[in-house]
Every structure is written in structure tokens, then in C-alpha cells.
């Protein structure tokens, strides 16, 4: 039996799905409403899953007193109330689909020292979600 711990965080951000290599027509066809030039936004939910031994002294895989500020600094402060295309360096040359957001958030959280990052799962809306396990 293997144990994991998962914690959910939230941020709200805007984005636009647009690839400069495509024509305007191609962008509209591929991305539909998400190509609207002014951008649009979501309430993102980020579910972070950690694995590792449960420390017998604390009963914990990871102390939320350490995890929460780490995620706050690495993700929430970077993404919350931002326009992802212009204000998050990673997306200046990469389409900020939630697939790419999941991969970027995984990259940012991977160095968390106290436990193994098993998975990042993002709900872009309550109807869709994206997972990245490295």
C-alpha cells in the first residue's frame, strides 16, 4: 500500500490561446473562442500530490506549514490575477493551454525538498482537468 497527500490551491488568471506561427484563420479554427484577442479568464484549481515516507514523529508526508508557503511563492504569487501570455515568462513563447500550465507548475514545484512530487492536476473549470506526472 502506498500513501500520498494531496492539497488543492486556487488562482484566477486570464489567457489567450494563439500561436503566432498560424494564420488568423487557423488560430480561430483551432482555438475557437479561446482565440479571442483580448483574452479571457478562469478560476484554476491546482491539486498537488506528494508521496514519500510518513515521518513517524509528525505523522506527515509533508508539513503543510512548509508546503503552503512554497506553493504560494512558486505558483500562486506568479499566476494569480495575471495575464498568463504576457506576465508569466514561460508563456511569452508558448501557448498557455492548461496542458502547458500543468507542466510549468510541475517544473516549479518539483524542487520542493520535503517529499516527492507525484502529480500536478489542474482544473481549468469544473468540467475539465489536466494532469502531469513528470
Amino acid at each position: 500500500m502506498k500513501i500520498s497527500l494531496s492539497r488543492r490551491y486556487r488562482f484566477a488568471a486570464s489567457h489567450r490561446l494563439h500561436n503566432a506561427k498560424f494564420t488568423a484563420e487557423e488560430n480561430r479554427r483551432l482555438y475557437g473562442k479561446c482565440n479571442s484577442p483580448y483574452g479571457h479568464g478562469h478560476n484554476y484549481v491546482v491539486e498537488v500530490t506528494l508521496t514519500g515516507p510518513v515521518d513517524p514523529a509528525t505523522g506527515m508526508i509533508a508539513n503543510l506549514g512548509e508546503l503552503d508557503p512554497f506553493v504560494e511563492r512558486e505558483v500562486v504569487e506568479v499566476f494569480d490575477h495575471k495575464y498568463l501570455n504576457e506576465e508569466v515568462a514561460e508563456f511569452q513563447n508558448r501557448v498557455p493551454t492548461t496542458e502547458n500550465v500543468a507542466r510549468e507548475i510541475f517544473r516549479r514545484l518539483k524542487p520542493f525538498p520535503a517529499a516527492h512530487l507525484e502529480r500536478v492536476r489542474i482544473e481549468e473549470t469544473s468540467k475539465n482537468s489536466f494532469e502531469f506526472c513528470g
Partner: protein
Amino acid sequence: MIRITRKVEFSAAHFYHNPNFSAEENRRVFGKCNNPHGHGHNYVLEVTVAGEPDPETGMVLDLKELKDILQREVVERMDHRHLNYEVPELAGKIPTCENIAAVIWQLLDPQIKQGKLDRVRLYESPDLFADCVANGQAATGGHA
């Protein structure tokens, strides 16, 4: 293979305290959860059993039976109890979400006679949960 999941809720009190730590260390490591008066949660437990449906009944395991097992093994032991004092299986352990989920796995595993216990997911709050999964099983996503 089919997975079936049953959800049950229980409410319980706990606090985190390690007698081997100084009072100062306990406060630093456990923060608000160290309040000796305890505090409580509405825990939500999701239990998943995996197996092939019986050709005669069409069921992996009768959900009524799973419901009875959860009632007997978990709800009667933990509902409206103080987890630090009233659940012998947790004696000597800090009653974190990880440890409670592991104890629930140990309690349920021998009781599941049809199919196999596949996952125990225990929510302490909608934003914090622990999963126990069978060995070799990749942790699966999905939120209730």
C-alpha cells in the same frame, strides 16, 4: 476490471502533539493543529474496490455490503470521537490525514472478500486529502 466507490462521512476531533518534542517544537511543527483542546473536521471517506463483476449478480461487491463494512469498521469507530483518545488503532500515532487513511486501509483490507481494496481516499477538508492505493497501482486523479 471495474472499480466501484462508496462514500461515507464522519465527524471527529483531533490535535497534533508529539510527547517527544518540547512545547516550543510542538507549536512550531504543528502550528494551530497543536491546540491541546483539539479541533474537528467533517471527514469524507471514499473507498474503491476493484474486481470483475460476478456473472450471476452483475456486481463486483454488493454496495450494501460495502456500506455495512464502512459503517462497522470506520463510522462506528471514528464518528463523533476524539481520534487522539478514543480510537485504539491510532494510539501512539499522530492522527494526521495520512495516518488515519492508513489505519482505515488496514481495517478495511481484510474485510473485503469480493474484489480487492483498490483505494482509500480520506478528505480532511475539500482541499486536503490522503490516498492509500494498492501496491503497484498508480495514484489516480479525479475529484468527487
